[in-house]
């Protein structure tokens, strides 16, 4: 209910005023008609209902430009402070709807898109959603506002994450990848002089760590039957020199390095026993907690992990963790997976120019620098990553930046979500030993071809 509803009704269109007055008159006459004993009470009740109903209808007539957005609870204090700064600078107010994590925001966004797309003007978009939202006409292309300076400054994988079919659909905000983090003190306690550089090292060092009693399991992964499993598989597969698709989107993940990667994942739990079996049900949060509690010696983690691991309020291994390049099959392919997210604009927004002002404010180079220093958000801008102030404020950034050359994105296809859910099912069948890795990936390829052809037929 708008706080200015009376003013809004007054400023509202002629039809609103005329309709409301006619209704009011008719109800008044009905209630006070001769012989009606209930007239006063019923009049008051109906009047209250009328006021409530019109409060909803007239909120649209508010004169000031306000932008609406939706997000999870994780960064609310930071967002609110930035929204105040944005309002002070531009006079544009931003309203935040807070909901739980996960796909909940996506479901609400899609519902709003189906209803015209004007409920949320700006929103956080994941790289895996860009193709779907752009393909369905839900996200607005921002090509007209992209300057040569912005194109020059953006990190390549962050740009890939915000583009679909050659068009920009937002600016990068949290352009993160998964970094390999190891507990240096634990390695030294086990008599190891360096961190593992190959997957064989991971196994060998892991067994050494476990046999010497430093940890029960040397590592854990986020292999729950969710998107996190696809992220880890993408990283491992690339480090084994595997690929998801070719240029014609023909699936190749049942061949070569991808099969070896899945086999390693299965063996790491069941044969080598260096990965905590609980990884099969863990998401990133549980793995982070295990690392913070000193239960495991290494992990791969999003964002700036040392910010979290050196926080005494959250971590019991302060000062012990370091960043290294991702292990790979031969030490020469230390690839990891990226997960760039950005701020995008809804196609149905009534305030596109104002929405772009906000996106530029919060996700452009200046806004990204603020987010990096104050919130530990991984920037997608070269100028920010090279900024001395940012490097001084984020521990381990220099080591993490070395990983930037070896990054892969997940497939950018409009049918990604259906592919992701079904692919995770097949990977899990291999991880739980119901099928061999080759069988599971062969079936995954069949499912993928079915999804792809259904989509192509539907969009013909």
């Amino acid at each position, binding site marked *: 209910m708008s706080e200015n509803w009376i003013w809004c009704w007054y400023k509202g269109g002629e039809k609103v005023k005329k309709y409301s007055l006619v209704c009011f008159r008719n109800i008044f006459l*009905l209630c006070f008609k001769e*012989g009606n004993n209930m007239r006063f009470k019923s009049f008051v009740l109906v009047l209250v209902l009328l006021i409530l109903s019109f409060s909803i209808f007239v909120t649209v007539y508010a004169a000031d430009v306000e932008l609406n957005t939706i997000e999870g609870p994780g960064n609310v204090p930071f967002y609110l402070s930035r929204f105040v700064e944005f309002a002070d600078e531009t006079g544009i107010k931003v309203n935040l709807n807070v909901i739980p994590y996960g796909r909940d925001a996506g479901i609400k966004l899609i519902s709003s898109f189906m209803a015209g797309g004007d409920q949320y003007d700006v929103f956080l978009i994941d790289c895996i959603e860009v193709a779907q939202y752009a393909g369905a006409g839900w996200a607005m292309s921002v090509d007209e506002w992209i300057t040569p300076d912005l194109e020059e400054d953006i990190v390549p994988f962050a740009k890939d994450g915000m583009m679909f079919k050659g068009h920009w659909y937002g600016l990068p905000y949290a352009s993160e990848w998964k970094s390999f983090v190891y507990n240096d003190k634990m390695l030294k306690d086990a008599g190891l002089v360096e961190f593992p550089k190959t997957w064989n090292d991971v196994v060998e060092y892991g067994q050494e760590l476990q046999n010497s009693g430093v940890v029960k399991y040397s590592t854990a992964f986020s292999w729950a039957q969710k998107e996190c499993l696809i992220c880890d598989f993408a990283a491992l597969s690339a480090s084994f020199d595997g690929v998801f698709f070719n240029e014609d989107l023909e699936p190749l993940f049942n061949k070569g390095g991808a099969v070896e990667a899945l086999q390693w994942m299965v063996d790491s739990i069941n044969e080598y026993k260096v990965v905590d079996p609980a990884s099969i049900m863990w998401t990133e949060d549980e793995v982070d907690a295990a690392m913070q509690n000193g239960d495991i010696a290494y992990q791969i983690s999003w964002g700036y992990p040392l910010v979290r691991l050196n926080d005494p309020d959250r971590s019991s291994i302060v000062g012990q963790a370091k960043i290294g390049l991702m292990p790979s099959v031969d030490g020469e392919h230390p690839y990891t997976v990226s997960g760039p997210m950005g701020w995008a604009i809804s196609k149905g927004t009534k305030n596109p120019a104002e929405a772009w002002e906000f996106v530029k404010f919060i996700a452009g180079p200046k806004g990204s620098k603020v987010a990096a220093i104050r919130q530990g958000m991984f920037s997608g801008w070269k100028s920010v990553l090279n900024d001395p102030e940012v490097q001084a404020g984020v521990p381990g950034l220099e080591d993490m930046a070395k990983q930037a050359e070896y990054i892969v994105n997940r497939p950018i296809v409009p049918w990604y979500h259906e592919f992701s859910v079904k692919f995770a099912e097949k990977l*899990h069948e291999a991880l739980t030993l119901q099928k061999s890795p080759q069988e599971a990936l062969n079936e995954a390829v069949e499912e993928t071809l079915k999804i792809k052809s259904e989509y192509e037929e539907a969009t013909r």
Partner: protein
Amino acid sequence: MHIPSTLKANDRRLGYILIAPTLIILFLVVLYPLLYSFYISFHNMNVAIPWKGRIFVGFDNYINVIQDISWWKAILRTFYFVISDVLVGITFGLMIALLLNKKLIMKSLIFAIVLFPYVLPPIVNALMWKLIYDSNYGLLNGMLYQFGFINDYIAWFSKTNSAIIMLIIANLWQGTPFAVILFLSGLKSIPLEIYEAARIDGSSSWQSFRYITLPLLKPIIYILVVMKTILTFKIFDLIYALTGGGPANSTQVVSMKIYNESFNFLKFGRASAMSYILLGVVTCFVIIYMKLFEEKKESEN
């Protein structure tokens, strides 16, 4: 007292006006979505391809679902869940109600503790059991390890055969108090004179239970069976919060499958068809139960 007909007509008209907002809301929130979902179950409707709109496909969605092996696997898993939950839940509920029907010290406190799980929101229940089942710090692992039942902590949700059992236990913990309440009220309504007469005739406790208590509780048992079947068939919160359908779909029940189809794949037409097939299955169950109940009642009469 004679009421003028004009006055009665006015009261009726006013009554309709006053309940009109409720009827409108009921129509918009309940009836319209129901009718619309039935309508789109006969259409190919992919929300991610909005420019195609809805394409009429007749019964294709229903046929595709029925031909989908993963759908029947989800149905079987749901049956397993339902049968376990109904049998064990009713048995435990009756046992606890029999205990609470006795004279106990601090009976009110015990009753409040027994009822406590029922008042928790389902998602809170799920998150609580997530902590209990934790593979490194969970209460369950800690207790079993301390008492020597296990040699090492177990990752309960990492195994396909144990994951669904853990979910059933979590659901039973919350659902059993409902059975306790109904059974307790049923036990309180049985006249004590019947038990006294049976004691005079020399019947034992077991005979009293078998020939007096159980038959008189049968209406409550049938109600519980029907209600728990319906409630467990549509279970979602617990599975969404704890396993998401994994590991390897071993806990993917029908409701999770419908959720994936609609909110992950955005295929509303197919998801609607699944919902109505599920409605048909549950309705069949209810009809079977009612028929069994009527036959029993006739034979007893």
